[in-house]
């Protein structure tokens, strides 16, 4: 069970310099960013496949989740997803499923 204080911490809004910035390749920034887990969930539903693939296989998602959001559990789940080598719609669907499930759980635990 997630503790209320750590759930709130994971769900907090981050300062702009700690937001997740979506790129499609080295140095090519899409203009989209997410400064909370909620915003991240919204963006991964819309962002182009190329960006999701770029960040998943570089380990950027899991690094941001563990290092910045401080959610080791979610980072581990993303790592497991990467090991399954999903691409395109499959990647988006699975990523959205994992993140939304985790988001709902954290949200519930703060109530």
């Amino acid at each position, binding site marked *: 069970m997630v503790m209320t204080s750590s759930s709130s911490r994971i769900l907090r809004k981050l300062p702009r310099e700690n937001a997740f910035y979506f790129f499609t390749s080295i140095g090519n*920034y899409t203009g989209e960013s997410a400064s909370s887990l909620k915003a991240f969930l919204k963006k991964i539903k819309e962002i182009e496949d190329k960006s999701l693939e770029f960040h998943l296989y570089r380990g950027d998602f899991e690094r941001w989740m563990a290092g910045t959001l401080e959610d080791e559990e979610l980072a581990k789940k993303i790592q497991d997803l990467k090991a399954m080598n999903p691409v395109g719609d499959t990647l988006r669907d699975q990523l959205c499923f994992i993140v939304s499930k985790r988001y709902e759980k954290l949200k519930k635990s703060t109530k």
Partner: protein
Amino acid sequence: MKIKDGAAVLDELDWKILQALQENAKQTYTEIGHLLDIAHSTVYDRIRKMEKNGVIKRYTTILDLEKAGVKYVTAIMTIFTDPKESENVAKRLSESEEVLEVSTSLSEELLIIAKVVAEDQEKLHSFIAHSIAPLPGVLRIRTSIVTRRYKEGECVKNFFGQGGIKLSKMETQGRVFKLNLTSLGNEEP
């Protein structure tokens, strides 16, 4: 060199001296004098005047990093910005050690073009992701990694001047000088 309406006006001999300096800024006044068939004191006077008036910005050194055994990548970044924040973005970029050149560009959207260097592609990406993308007003970024250079450096000769003298860019070994075109009343190319 004369000053007209606050801007420097160079004559043909000034341009020839500048051209000689750009080919090799380590040349002595005597060597330039021999080359142009004029007294070294004339060369000295004219160069001093152009330095004093900011026509010659500075003398610098162009390094061949590959020969120095340094591994690096160069990239050209095109940064699309919110016009209200463009000036601040350009200033912040100019303060970064990784950024070698920053210019704004006239096009349908307001663009900043910057030349950036990093040890490798990973460090380049990290710099852009952590230092450039989060700047307020950055809308998106396109980055092209340079794979091969055909020409590099700054050298002015035989392009803007009179009597067949014009400016072009070239690289020289050793010291080169930076010419301040704005002080000549020209826009930098």
